[in-house]
């Protein structure tokens, strides 16, 4: 250990501000996002859900349901791939809440709280870093579909747009799980609550089968379920190359979710942070 040479500027002679500027908030958020990505690089096993899950689900569902639902595998793919895509990426958004909770329970969060940074930066950083996860999941699902014989009629441009739509909607949903993350007792309970919400939302939808064979009461739910609209929007985009009403409905749903849960979250989070 060498000596600490520089002398400390005294507490009263410093220039101090009691609020955080927008520019600083953005910079802090990017620093936190960078931390998120470093963590992923250090523990690549974190990416199992966004890499293996789309592969396994796509292959499994294709061969289990393909013949029964659509007659053959090739004609099931245009129905299935958008469904799998939505289900996988939305499931991934739970991770935001779980990791936030884990982080908040760790010592390092105390340091974040003791630094003069934007309070919201740890969350904003996590949300930013998570878009990388969504992108990985989206890409892999489309690639696996392509290998199995899926040829989206909409063309590359619309496929990319479909992917972006799913990412935006998942990002919106992650506010719900971030909220659970702050109010839950532990990381595993976040996981528990979140799957309780997500399971019915993704399965009671048109993600894997067309809704017209379902009983009337179920159809009623499936048709208002925002996940169904998202799946339909993705099908329109990727398979036909059109932006339909479902596209706007999905975006509207995402906006409503953010409008409700972002303030709820921020209130709960500020109380703890």
């Amino acid at each position, binding site marked *: *250990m060498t000596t600490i040479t520089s002398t*400390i500027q*005294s507490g*009263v002679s410093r220039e101090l*501000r009691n609020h955080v500027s927008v520019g600083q908030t953005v910079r802090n958020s990017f620093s936190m996002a960078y*931390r998120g990505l470093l963590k992923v690089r250090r523990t690549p096993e974190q990416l199992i859900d966004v890499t293996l899950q789309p592969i396994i689900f796509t292959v499994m569902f294709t061969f289990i349901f393909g013949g029964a639902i659509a007659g053959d595998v090739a004609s099931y793919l245009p129905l299935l791939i958008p469904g799998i895509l939505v289900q996988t990426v939305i499931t991934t958004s739970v991770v935001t809440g779980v990791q936030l909770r884990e982080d908040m329970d760790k*010592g390092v969060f105390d*340091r974040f709280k003791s630094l003069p940074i934007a309070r919201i*930066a740890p969350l904003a950083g996590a949300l930013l870093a998570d878009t990388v996860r969504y992108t990985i999941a989206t890409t892999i699902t489309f690639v696996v579909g392509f290998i199995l014989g899926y040829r989206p009629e909409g063309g590359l441009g619309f496929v990319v747009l479909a992917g972006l739509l799913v990412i935006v909607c998942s990002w919106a949903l992650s506010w719900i799980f971030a909220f659970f993350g702050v109010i839950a007792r532990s990381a595993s309970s976040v996981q528990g609550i979140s799957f309780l919400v997500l399971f019915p939302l993704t399965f009671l939808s048109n993600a894997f089968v067309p809704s017209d064979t379902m009983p009337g009461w179920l159809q009623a739910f499936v048709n208002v379920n925002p996940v169904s609209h998202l799946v339909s929007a993705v099908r329109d985009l990727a398979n036909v190359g059109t932006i339909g009403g479902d596209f706007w409905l999905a975006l509207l749903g995402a906006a409503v979710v953010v409008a409700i849960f972002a303030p709820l979250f921020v209130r709960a989070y500020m109380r703890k942070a």
Partner: protein
Amino acid sequence: MATSSDWAVEATGLVKIFGDNRAVDGVDLRVRTGSVYGVLGPNGAGKTTVIRMLATLLRPDAGHATVFGHDVQHEAQIVRQLIGVTGQYASVDETLSATENLMLFSRLNGLGRAESRAKANELLEEFGLTAAAKRPLKNFSGGMRRRLDLAASLISQPPLIFLDEPTTGLDPRTRSQMWDTIRRLVSTGSTVLLTTQYLDEADQLADRIAVIDTGRVVAEGTADELKASVGKSSLQLRLLDPADRDDAVRAIRSVLGVDVTLSPEAARITAPMQDPDRITDLLVALREQNISLTELAVQKPTLDEVFLTLTGHGVETEKEEVNA
């Protein structure tokens, strides 16, 4: 604003209640700028809770505190620009390396990329961590983790540093290195508020000490003042014949001029020892009265005795253990 430059910390009537547990129950503290202030107390006394309130990590339920004149609640963001906090448990990111941690905290402190790298390298060098800089923290020893934690608190060169039990769990050599580091910090003009469970440590480092117990300050003063109230060391005598006890106690009172504590089995007598020189007189007096000893020992005051003296009860065991 004369007061704000004199006092790094001024707290009055701090209270924190967890459920029905008054963890901090009306604590007043005043830390003079440029000094080392020690908060001494046993497990569960409320040391960490006090530090967390002063460091803006926890909202007080009552009371008021300022750091260099800035209110910790209403001007929290300003206070955060003036403090460095090394918590009791390592507050660094376990998944990142030492360099990555210091880079991240430097960036969050507003340094640019190149500045952050320079700062990280400078601190790693200063704390003897250069060799381990790229290794994941999982393989760090307790001492290395503590040093990294302290390094991370010094990035912004804060004028006030909180150290929560900086040497707990360190071996004697690492502990004295940590003491040196703390002394150097003070010599550069920092103010340090540290907590400890060791009387010796508070004695070595702190200009003033507050002893806290069950959320209250039970004594405050310089190390010398506290030691004077406790007695530097104690003299322990074991008598050959317990029947001589009353005579022995009388002799101690008249020669040393102090009150004694009797052990329940009656044969052991403990007396505070202010002046070692007078022990010879005592031994001569005992010999003259034909009181024989089987054992004679000098014991430094333990935290337990400090508490016994200051609070009238020893260090309390955890409630759970008592009930079990």
